[in-house]
């Protein structure tokens, strides 16, 4: 009985609550208006929203095509980029209307088979007359590749490239005392990178071409990307000519090829060689290069060793 009385009381309370809920239309009305609002929003979306999203898509498509065009134009493909800006203007500087801003950039990408990652800082100082920007720090991280010459260049000139591990950045002491080795030449890196890759690809193509043209005579011990090509002749075993083609990068970022000829001849041939032609071969090769150019010089070398086979 008590239980039932209790239940009766509870029920009464619940009924009251339900009645109140029914009487306060705001609750369901609110939600309905919310629904209306969403519909409105969607409608707006539909009219200008579809337009803006299509706009966005168009814009994105246009920019992406511009990006791929730029990448083809320069040969450099930037995949990631981020930057942080820090305002270093102190109050005294602000009074003299001088603004100092430090920007930290990070970008990564590839140029053909070379992947790079750069972190650099640019300090911008704006005073009344002009704006000066300077690269104050440059770190280059490159993945180990077959291009040892490139990695040497980067570590020599930018002092600090290392395999995949970011390095402690060197700090640029303002003005005097800055050593020549502390290069912050960002653009030079990219220029040299481009020319290096150009030579690399050219060397690869040339080696491949000769391998295909003279499959028996030419052998590439480390594949077409290596820096040496060997010439053998089946009819003259024991004789071998090895052409070493290095791509060197000097301190100013200039890229130039350096070719050398190595000869391997049997002892008897050396004894018979009265004119010392074999000793002079490397030097003659250099002259030949100067006269004929790389491809023609290589071709003539191959032909000279394998003269009998070609007949």
């Amino acid at each position: 009985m008590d239980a039932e009385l209790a239940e009766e009381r509870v029920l009464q309370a619940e009924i009251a609550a339900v009645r109140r809920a029914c009487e306060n239309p705001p609750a369901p009305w609110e939600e309905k208006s919310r629904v209306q609002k969403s519909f409105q929003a969607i409608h707006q979306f539909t009219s200008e929203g579809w337009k803006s999203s299509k706009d966005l898509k168009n814009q994105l498509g246009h920019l992406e095509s511009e990006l791929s065009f730029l990448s083809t134009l320069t040969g450099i493909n930037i995949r990631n980029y981020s930057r942080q800006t820090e305002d270093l203007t102190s109050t005294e500087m602000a009074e003299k209307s001088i603004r100092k801003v430090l920007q930290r950039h990070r970008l990564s990408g590839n140029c053909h088979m070379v992947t790079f990652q750069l972190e650099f800082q640019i300090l911008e100082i704006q005073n009344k007359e002009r704006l000066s920007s300077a690269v104050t720090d440059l770190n280059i991280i490159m993945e180990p590749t077959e291009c040892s010459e490139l990695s040497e260049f980067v570590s020599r000139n930018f002092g600090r490239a290392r395999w995949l591990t970011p390095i402690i950045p060197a700090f640029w002491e303002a003005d005097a005392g800055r050593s020549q080795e502390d290069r912050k030449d960002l653009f030079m890196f990219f220029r040299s990178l481009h020319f290096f890759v150009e030579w690399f690809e050219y060397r690869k193509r040339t080696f491949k071409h000769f391998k295909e043209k003279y499959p028996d005579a030419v052998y590439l011990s480390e594949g077409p990307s290596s820096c040496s090509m060997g010439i053998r002749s089946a009819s003259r075993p024991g004789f071998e000519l090895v052409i070493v083609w290095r791509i060197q990068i000097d301190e100013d970022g200039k890229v130039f090829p350096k070719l050398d000829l190595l000869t391997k001849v049997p002892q008897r041939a050396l004894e018979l060689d009265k004119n010392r032609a074999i000793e002079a071969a490397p030097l003659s090769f250099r002259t030949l290069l100067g006269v004929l150019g790389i491809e023609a010089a290589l071709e003539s070398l191959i032909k000279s060793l394998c003269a009998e086979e070609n007949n």
Partner: protein
Amino acid sequence: MAGILAPGLGVLAHLERLENQTSRSRKRSEAQAQERVLGTKIQKLRHLRDDPRAALWHRRGSVKACIANVEPNRTVEVNEQEALEEKLENVKAILQAYHFTGLSGKLTSRGVCVCINTAFEGNLLDSYFVDLVIQKPLRIHHHSVPVFIPLEEIAAKYLQTNIQHFLFSLCEYLNAYSGRKYQADRLQSDFAALLTGPLQRNPLCNLLSFTYKLDPGGQSFPFCARLLYKDLTATLPTDVTVTCQGGEALSTSWEEQRASHETLFCTKPLHQVFASFARREKLEMSLVS
């Protein structure tokens, strides 16, 4: 019947018992009736509560269902839009980042406008542009490259066959020119005290001529330097001649100095050489005083 056996007491007791019985049964039936009434009341109340509640819930449910139907679409679209915007920002940023390679460009109606940025020793200097028309053959519509840079030569060699080479080659020339100009400008502005005469230079900044003294106001003879930069893609001179004015009676120490200066000018940028002169001078002054 027991009452007859116990007269008086028994009858009263019996009557009491009977009364109790009746009242109990009455109470019981009352209670039962009450219960029944309560029961039905509760049932009614329950109905009273449940029906409108159900209706309310139904209404709420349908509204919620509406909103639920509406909102996922909306959130999906919002997400899509946000993703698109993010991607757009990303692509814009990467396009901007190309400036740091030294070469960047913008598509135009005719072709592309390539912007070449120059820098020297980390200092970002002038930019130049070349507007290319993409047609067969490729041609340069207009450009801001100075007249003394051999643009036509480079274009004749590479523009049609290897546009990348053309662009990077042009970059080399422009960067070298910017670098030489920067060195000459710095010499004129920062080290005017050490110069005894005006700095003579040509527009290409590959021929510089000036006279300088290590100790301005001192008794030493001024040196006369002539720097020739034959390689237009280099920022260091190829030919340097340093002579001493008042050429007679050159002691060995002056001769040594002259020779060392020649080497210095060949290996270090101009303004750095003068900075080292200035430092040496300061050091000597501090030692003397």
